[in-house]
Every structure is written in structure tokens, then in C-alpha cells.
């Protein structure tokens, strides 16, 4: 049994490689007849997240919902909607999560800025630490001087 499985493995791998990428948009029935419109639809689709697989665009995904969303995008493209209108239509229904490229908002800006901000905070902390070490020791006060003189006597 095990030997049989091992013998089948290369065939299964080969089949996965051959079938894998073919799942998505290679079906000509799905495509728009106008090649420019089809190219636009593909560009929009590659920016839309498949909500089933979550880390693939709807153009790359083999999920049923992705196929339906590809269809919706093509209907809108054929109807003459702008890229922005189609993106907004999707965001109204599925939220910003459907954008594979996040929109620049205050929250995402803060996220982008967090690494440089951490670096600056670290540099400030290091500079303060080093400056403190460089300070000369405070001179002795009168009482301390007397105490030392007493001890050394």
C-alpha cells in the first residue's frame, strides 16, 4: 500500500502543478470579449481579496465565491463603471478587508510609522543613557567632606 502511494506521489505532484494555476481565470467563458475590458477586469480583480481563502486575490482563487465576484467585476466593467466605482461597490458590501492593498488612513499610517518611531525612541533612550554616564560625579557636599576627613583621621 505504502509503495503504491509512493509510486503515485510524483503523478499527484505533477497533477497539482498542472491543475493548480489552471483553476482560476483560464476559463474563456468567464472572460470579456473586449481584451482591453478583460485586462481592466483582471487588474481590478487582482486587487480584491478572496473572502474564502483570504490571502489570494479573486483572480487567483479557485473558490466559488471568487468566481461569482469575478463575474460581478466583469458585469460592472462591461457596464462602463470606473475602477474606483467598482472598488467602492465592493468595499460597501465587504468592508476595507476586501482590498488586498490597504487604504492609507490614520491607522495604517501609524502602522507604517511604528518601525521608524520605535527606532527614534530607541536612539533617544540610548542618547539619554550615554549622556547620563558622561556626567562628572557631583562634588562632595560640606557634610560629606567632614565625614570623610573624620574617617581618614
Amino acid at each position, binding site marked *: 500500500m505504502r509503495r503504491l502511494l509512493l509510486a503515485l506521489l510524483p503523478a499527484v505532484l505533477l497533477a497539482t502543478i498542472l491543475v493548480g494555476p489552471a483553476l482560476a481565470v483560464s476559463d474563456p467563458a468567464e472572460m470579456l470579449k473586449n481584451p482591453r475590458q478583460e485586462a481592466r477586469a483582471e487588474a481590478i480583480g487582482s486587487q480584491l481579496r478572496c*473572502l474564502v481563502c483570504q490571502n489570494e486575490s479573486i483572480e487567483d482563487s479557485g473558490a466559488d*465565491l471568487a468566481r461569482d465576484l469575478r463575474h460581478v467585476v466583469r458585469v460592472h466593467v462591461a457596464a462602463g463603471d470606473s475602477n474606483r466605482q467598482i472598488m467602492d461597490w465592493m468595499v460597501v*458590501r*465587504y468592508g476595507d*478587508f476586501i482590498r488586498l492593498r490597504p487604504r492609507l488612513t490614520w491607522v495604517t499610517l501609524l502602522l507604517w510609522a511604528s518601525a521608524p518611531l520605535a527606532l527614534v525612541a530607541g536612539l533617544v533612550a540610548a542618547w539619554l543613557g550615554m549622556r547620563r554616564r558622561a556626567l562628572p560625579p*557631583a562634588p562632595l557636599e560640606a557634610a560629606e567632606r567632614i565625614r570623610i576627613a573624620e574617617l581618614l583621621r
Partner: protein
Amino acid sequence: MMPPGSLLSRRRVLTIAPLAGAAAVGVGFWAMLAGMGRGSFDPHDIHAPALNRQVPPFALPDQAPGHGFSSADLGAATAPLLVNFFASWCIPCVIEAPLLISLKGRLPVWGIAYKDRPDDAAGFVTRTGSPYARLAADRPGLTAIDWGVSGVPESFLIRPGGTIAWHTAGPLTQEIIDRQVLPLAAELRR
């Protein structure tokens, strides 16, 4: 020169600052995990935009053994009701079915069979016993996209007048029903 008192307090500040930072992060994580336990925070919930919106315009055909409905029917509703997208091919829907049936007397449930063959959907409802006061079919699945549905089952609590008051992507559980759906429905009925 610096008086010894201020040097000490500065050292204390430098000692406490990282601890305070770590504590703040800890409190943040605790709040997040507690919210996940209570159900008030769900990292998988991608459907916030559905809330407080009018249901999208649609008119769906009958799905035996019930009769279909449209957005106008939801708009004309005078009491809160639950709209449940389901399919016979969906395993969580099978698990969810008894809960919906137990809900039947307390909150009307309207069903939409998502991308399902009419015979299969009818068979599913006959097997489990129908919780649905009305039953519609969305065979192409395009109405579901308009609602922002990403997979079945999904449930929406609809206010009288047809706005979405509450939504969950995923199967209902007894806890969700007791803690969220029924209290909110009672509030909407008042």
C-alpha cells in the same frame, strides 16, 4: 549640578517606564482576549459595513416548502426577524438547524437557500424540520454578494423597517442566541 533627589526620581522613572509600557501592552492583550471570550471582539468578523444599513434591494423566488420574499417584504415587517443564509451542502448549517428550530417560537426566521439545487434545499429542510417562516432561493448567489455574505451559514437580525441590526458570519450557537440575538430582538420589539 543636579540635586540627588531629582537624580533618584529620574532613575525611578527610567525603571518604571518599560514596566508601564509592558503593562499597557498586557492590558491591551487582556482586553482583546476578554472581548473574544464575550463575543464583543471578533478578529474574523469582516462584515461591519452591513450594520445599520437598509437591506439591499432584491426579489427572490420561492423555495419549496415556503414562499419567497423580497426586500420590500423585509421593509414592511413590523417585528424583528432573523434572515438566515444556508445550503444543503454546508456542514455547519446541519449543526445550526436544531438551534434555528428552537428559535422558531421566539423569533421569526426567514431562510435564503444559497447556491443550492431546489430539490436539495427542500430535502434539507424536510429532513431537519423547517425553522423558516418564509423560504427563498438564491441560486446564482448574487443577492448574497449584495448582502456581503462570504459563505454559509450567515445570519442577519433585521429591524422593523428593514435595516440590519446585527450580523454574524458563521453558524449561530446557543450562546450567541442567548446573549446577543434574543436580547437585541427583545429591545427592538419595545
